[in-house]
Every structure is written in structure tokens, then in C-alpha cells.
């Protein structure tokens, strides 16, 4: 059970940063609360009493998103359901609707933020592979005197290991900035024990862009989650495919590469077996999203024998 002395709801970034700087040690920031509340239960942190909880959901600067100069700037309060329902976001972040549909359920997605998912830094966080595939950056703000200073870094560098990030003690995440992937096909694969409310054993995100003929891989982005302490960007496979003619054989060969990079401590063989099919399916689904014909089950099976 989570208890606190104060539950604070600042409405501006400045107010939030002041409260955060002045908060007694042990205080926490809250976005959707979907990680924090279950964390303070028996079997995990147990009963926890914190001095202050600073809820960011009403900080106006963190709400909404902008698309500018080929970049999508997602305010830290953007929740997963928006990736599913917002037309503009679907167009610019084409793997995110598929990631979102596999994320928790319709209800939790109304609260859970992408920023919270990244700061939580779980090896199984579903939002992280697509973000690193989009060369995502994270923007943080803190107070220097009464001036707000910001810094930005690659999400891939921000994540330091399970539950570990480069976030400073007085910083607040203000935005996640991704490249616009308009024109790419996107896909997301996830395996867990059921279809809703399930933590990924393995997940994979892909973005694929073809040339106008639809026959050449113009660009490919691939990342895996759940296979080690932090998600993995598969740049060697991306390089292997970029500029090449699209064939089933090429995709199958590429998919065979990453298995040995599965470093999880549990169920390693299972995860390795899954990864191969996942990379292949991720690329195929992304191709379909670009307009390629859907491979039938028989074609899919054939590539695996």
C-alpha cells in the first residue's frame, strides 16, 4: 500500500520543478501511477510511505505533442491510448499503434505514459524498442536557480540497466523526441502468457521503408526487447537489408542473426527460438503495412523449414 504525506498536483513545469527541488528526500514523481501503485504492494516494495508524491499529469507543458522538421516531440504526459487513436501520431509513429494494442489494456493505456515506461526502465518495457528504433531522444528539465535548463540525450544511452537511468535527482522528463517515420510501415511483435495485461517475454519493433517500386529495402529499423538488461537495436541487420532487393530468403537469413545476442538470465533457449520468428514476422508485417501483399500462413511456415 502506498501512503504519503502530500499529494501535489502542479499545473506548470516551473511549479513542478520547484516542488520537486523542495521535496523531502524519498518523494517521487507520478505520471500515470500504473507502475508506482502496483510497486508498493506485498511481494514487491510492500507498504511504502513517501513524504510527497508530485503528480505531473496536469503540468500543461508536458501535455500534447508537436510535429516539426521531421521530428515528433511527445510531451511526457502522452499516454499509450493516444498512439492507438490519434491519426497524426499513427501516421508519424507507425509501429506505435501495434505496440499500444499489445500494451496492458484499453483502460491502463488511458493512464500509462510512454515517459513513465521509459523512466521505469524495465527490460520488458514495450515502448522502448520502437523508440530506440526511431532514434528516440529524451528531454529532461531541472532548475538552475530559477532558470529552467534542459538537456537531451539518446534513449539508448539514457537506459543504464534494469530500473537504472541517467535521470538526475532534480530532473523531470519533459518529452520524448522521435524521428518522424511517415512513409514507413511499422510493426510490433510480442509474446507473453496471454494477450491482454501481459508483460513481454520478448518483443520486437520494426519500421520498413521501400523504394517506390516496392522491391528494394530503402531503410529498415529493428529493435528487440525482453532479451537482456536493456533493449537492443539491431543495426547490423538493418545494414544488411538496407538497399537490398526484398526476398523471403534475405529476410529469413537476416532473422537468423540475432539469436546469440539473447542475454536474458531466464528462459534463454525459449527466447532465442522466439527471436528468429519475431524478426522475420516484424519485417514482414512492416512490409505489409507499406502495402506489400500479406504472406499466407503457408508462405510463413515455408520460410522456417
Amino acid at each position: 500500500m502506498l501512503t504519503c504525506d502530500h499529494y501535489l498536483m502542479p499545473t506548470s513545469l516551473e511549479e513542478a520543478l520547484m516542488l520537486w527541488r523542495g521535496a523531502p528526500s524519498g518523494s517521487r514523481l507520478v505520471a500515470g501511477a500504473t507502475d508506482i501503485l502496483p510497486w508498493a504492494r506485498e511481494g514487491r516494495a510492500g507498504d511504502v510511505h513517501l513524504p510527497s508524491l508530485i503528480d505531473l499529469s496536469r503540468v500543461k507543458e508536458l501535455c500534447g505533442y508537436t510535429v516539426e522538421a521531421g521530428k515528433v516531440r511527445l510531451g511526457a504526459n502522452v499516454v499509450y491510448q493516444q498512439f492507438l487513436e490519434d491519426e497524426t501520431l499513427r501516421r508519424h509513429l507507425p509501429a506505435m499503434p501495434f505496440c499500444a494494442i499489445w500494451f496492458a489494456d484499453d483502460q491502463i493505456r488511458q493512464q500509462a505514459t510512454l515517459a513513465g515506461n521509459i523512466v521505469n526502465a524495465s527490460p520488458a518495457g514495450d515502448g522502448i524498442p520502437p523508440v530506440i528504433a526511431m532514434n528516440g531522444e529524451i528531454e529532461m528539465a531541472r532548475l538552475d536557480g530559477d532558470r529552467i535548463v534542459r538537456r537531451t540525450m539518446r534513449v539508448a544511452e539514457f537506459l543504464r540497466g534494469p530500473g537504472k537511468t541517467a535521470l538526475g535527482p532534480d530532473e523531470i522528463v519533459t518529452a520524448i523526441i522521435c524521428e518522424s517515420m511517415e512513409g514507413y510501415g511499422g510493426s510490433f511483435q510480442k509474446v507473453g502468457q496471454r494477450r491482454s495485461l501481459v508483460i513481454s517475454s520478448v518483443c520486437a519493433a520494426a519500421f520498413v521503408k521501400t523504394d517506390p517500386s516496392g522491391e528494394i529495402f530503402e531503410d529498415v529499423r529493428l529493435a528487440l526487447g525482453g532479451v537482456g538488461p536493456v533493449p537492443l537495436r539491431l543495426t547490423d541487420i538493418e545494414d544488411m537489408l538496407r538497399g537490398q532487393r526484398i526476398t523471403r530468403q534475405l529476410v529469413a537469413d537476416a532473422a537468423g542473426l540475432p539469436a546469440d545476442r539473447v542475454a536474458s538470465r531466464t528462459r534463454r533457449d525459449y527466447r532465442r527460438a522466439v527471436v528468429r520468428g519475431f524478426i522475420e514476422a516484424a519485417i514482414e508485417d512492416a512490409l505489409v503495412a507499406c502495402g506489400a501483399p500479406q504472406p499466407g500462413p503457408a508462405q510463413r511456415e515455408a520460410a522456417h523449414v
Partner: protein
Amino acid sequence: MSDLELEMHINGRAVKRRAAPHLRLLDFLRDDLNMTGTKEGCGAGECGTCSVFVDGKLVKSCLMPVGKANGARIETIEGLAPKGGDLTEVQRAFHKTGASQCGYCIPGMVMAATSALRENPDAGIEEIKERLGGNICRCTGYTKIFEAVEIARDVIAGRLSAAALEPDPAGNSFIGNNVRRLDAPSKVSGRLRYAGDMVMPDMLHMQVLRSPHPHARIRVIDVSAAHALPGVACVITAADVPGEDGFGVFVHDQPIMARGIVRYVGEAVAAVAAEDVLTAKEALRLIKVEYDELPAVFDPEDAMKIGAPVLHDYAPTNITKHIPIRKGDVEQGFAEADLIVEDYYETQQVEHAYLEPEAGLAYVDHDDVVTVISPSQNITHHRHMLAKIIDKPINKVRFIMSPVGGGFGGKEDMIYQGMLALAAMKSGRPVRLVYTREESIISTAKRHPARITYKMGLKNDGRITAVEFKMISDGGAYGMSTEGVMRKAAILACGPYDIPNVKIDTIGVYTNNTPSGAFRTFGAMQAQFATESHLDICAEKLGLDPFEIRRRNMMQDGAITHTQQTLGKVSIGTVLDAAETASHWEAGAPGRGESRSDLGGEGTRAPCTLGARFAPAVAKVKKEVA
């Protein structure tokens, strides 16, 4: 602690209140406003019993700090239908299809269904399933629920007449006709109060201190600091039990709270009744217990070995119950066999996971009658046991069965009702205890795990000549229903088959694991899993069709079972025929692999996927491509 000043609109009414800063929206609705239609099945976002609308969006109120709801428009199950008015189409459709068994998940399901149809009034069945994906039901099953949502969708859209929500005409018999559940309206509207929803004036809240050790002697329990904490009304331990302390379905080996020894992790050691849950929790932290750890045993086969730690003095071999059954001469039967097949089967411990965690409310009434309200599946037996434990005549003990939010056997044991009664007696006030999901999983009985060694002798034509069946079952730290489960497993061990020579042993064993107790099928499932798996293996070895090997051995009308029961009518033949037809079974021995043609046919479920709501977009892309 600084309270929050809250203002919101709940079901159309303005509400202005102060609330503790840590409350979740769920707590605010249930505890502060007494709106208990919204339930707490898990408190961790996993079950959906707490779903409510906040500013038109469905959320899980157990994951929402109440501050987030400040200024919002809240709609709960109580607000869907106008007061005193008709139920909504969704609620009526749930009533129609019987989608309300225990009912505990149903308010949340109705909310999720309502949300799905508000978001997309034309949602297809796959999309409906996805949108209800955050809500779990353990007893109705999902078919009736999905059927209800489809009916409601069509009625709302005008594709189906409202008459579809009316009861089916009753025939001459209840059998073969849809009969409406009398209690459904109270469940689909959230009006039904389960034990955890009940309140009484001056009520105290109980919290339980549990053992961190699987086996330990309790040297001292010092409750003085807990007792001195302001807001604490009483602290109880085994020392407070006035009568003969012990309960269980067959052997009364379990004390209300650990008496001198703890035998499993999670066993109750002491309990506090206080003005509120937070104070009771704080008091638990002030109770000092000193333990001397004892060697523990976790494997039933180890527990039967000489020199193993003994759990209960009355059972020096740790055997709770051994049921031996002998029929004919198995050695003779094996000698006559053309083939002998031996194998080993294991089933695991299983949690019931009823959506309603254990809860109860006890008080002593004006006539000194100790009254316990709880979802007990066996109130009469509990009443008799409790009378002895609290040393009262039976007419001074009363059990009231509250609606059971799922039991599946798991609420047959009197695991917490005794503590509630003691605390109500000691404090003179009503006392309520509501388990968390974690507490329910840690401390309550599970399905017996089983290890079964099977030996079967058969003729080449598939007829069984002999069976030797031995099942060793981990009964955990206390007897509970173990004896009954061992009996049932022995009685049903060989399935509905006529076998001339039989040797059966089922053995329930004490270990320092969580106790095993009653669970749907009561031992039969474990035995059947072994028997039916074994028959398939034998069919493969003999090159026989699995239906055929069963038909050659099945009992007929008038058969006498190995426990000497004469069966008037035996329906296994009819069942096999029905299963064969329904599964589109292609006759042949198991192990045909890809050569068979009855795989993936009509009625086969496609692999699990998501994204039904993308279907129109995907179809559009396809069209553009074509």
C-alpha cells in the same frame, strides 16, 4: 498528512469532500462514499473489477490516485441506469444471457462492455473481446458475456428488437429452457453487497500478522506496543481462544492462529482490530514475535522418509491419509497382459483465484450471539466448529453466508472466521477483515499437487487386464480437505472403465507448504489427467484409435465400480460419441502427425492476435494495393 480538497461530479451529482492524500479513486468511492458496486479484485490493475469512467474514459480505479479525479466527471456502475429506472441495454443483455454467475466481476464487465460500445457502437466480436481484455471472469466464462455484448450492441443499433432482452418463453420444464437468474439484476447493477462491501456502525478493521517461516517454534509474542497504539481496539493471538482450538474438514488439526508453532509461510500468528486499516497495519509492525526456526520439509516423498521433520504429533509419519483399494488380483492381471505400460504423471498446485478475495464481518449481537458474515461455502460445519473453539453453546453462534464471489472449494475452510469472532468478542465491536489479493494467494489453500505412478496391463485388443495406481499428494501444513480429496481420487482413479484387477493407493502427506484444500473436482482431475493420458499412450502403443480403446473398456449400465457401487445408468458411451462428432475426429491411432486431415478444420481457433480495430485500415491498404 494533508488532506486533499476534492470536488467532482459522480453519477451526475456534485460531490465535495476532503480525503486522505494517498487514497485511490477506488478507496474514495468504496470507503468514503460507500459506493461498493465498484469492486477490488486485485488492487494492481490486473482484473478490471474496479473499472469506472473518468471524464468519459474507462480506467481502473485501483490504479488512479484520487487526486487525479479532482474536478472530473465520474460514472460508476451505480450511475449507468437511472435511479429506480430500467437497467441499460447492456445490463439487461447480461441478465438475458445469464452472464452473472458469482457476479463479482460483473459490474466491471458491464462497465467495460458499455465502454466498448460507446467507443465503437459497431464493434465486431473480436474487437469486443479486445476491449474487454482488461477484465477477468473466473466463473461465468466469457461466452455468455460476449454474447450479451453482441445482443446489447444490436439492440442499441436497432438491428435487433428490444424483445431480444426479454426472457425466453418458459417451457413445461426448466430442463432444456433458458431460465433467468433471480439475482442477476442485483449483480449487473452493482447493488449486491459481498462481505467486503458491508459496513456496520462503529466497525473496526482487522489486519493479520503472518509467519515469515515455513516451520518454527514461537518463543514469545509481545503485543504490548501494538495494544498501546491509539486507535487499536484489540490484539488477538492463540492465547485468546477460550475453547478447544482446532478446525478442519476431517481432522481438526488447525488452530485459529498459530499455537506455539508455525507450519507454513503465511500462517496467521496474530491479528489486530483497529479504527482503520492504516492503524491496524501500523500495529502489526509493533508486534514482536521471536521464532526458533525448525527444520522444514517441502517434498511429500521426503516427508514420508524416516527422520523427516514431523509436523503434527498425531501423525508421526506425516501421512494425513492413505486410502488403499484392492480389487481382484493385479499380479494375475499383469501376467495375462500382452502389454504392460508404466508411466509417471505430475500435476501442480493451483490457486483458485476467485475474483472476490476472502472477506468477513463479525459482531456480537444483543443476545450475545457471536455472528460471522462471510462467503463461507460450509456455514453449518463452520458454526459447529466455531462453537467449540469459542466455547459457546451452538445457539450462541451464528454464521450468515454472504454472496460468494467465486469459491471453487476454496471457501470451504474456516481460515479467518475464527479470528473475526474472537476480535468481535474481545472488542465488543463489529470487526471486518478484507484480504488483499496477495494475502489470498499466500495464505489460503490450493489444489493438491499430485505425483502419480501408473502401471497398466492390456491385451492386444485394448482390453485392460489390470491397473496399479499410486498417487502421492502434497497436503501442505494442515489437513483441511485432504482426506476427502484422497478418497475421491481413489474412487475415481481408474475413470469410467471396467477393470477386473485394481490396486489403488492415494496418500495425502503433510509438508511445510501452503495447505492444500478443496478445489473443483476434489481429486478427480488429478486422477483423470493420469488415466486419460495413460490411455492415449497405450492406444498409440497398440495402434488403436483412442476412442476405440475407451469403448472397449468403458463401463456399461449396471456396472459395479471398484468401490462396489452399482451404477444404474452409465453415459460414457454417449459422451464419447458426442466428443467424437464435435471434434470432427478422423479415426486412427495417435501419432499420425501431419498425415491426418482433421487438423485445423472447422471450429479451430486461430492463433491469438490483437488488432481487430485495425482491420478496416488494413483492408483499406489491401484494396489500394489491389
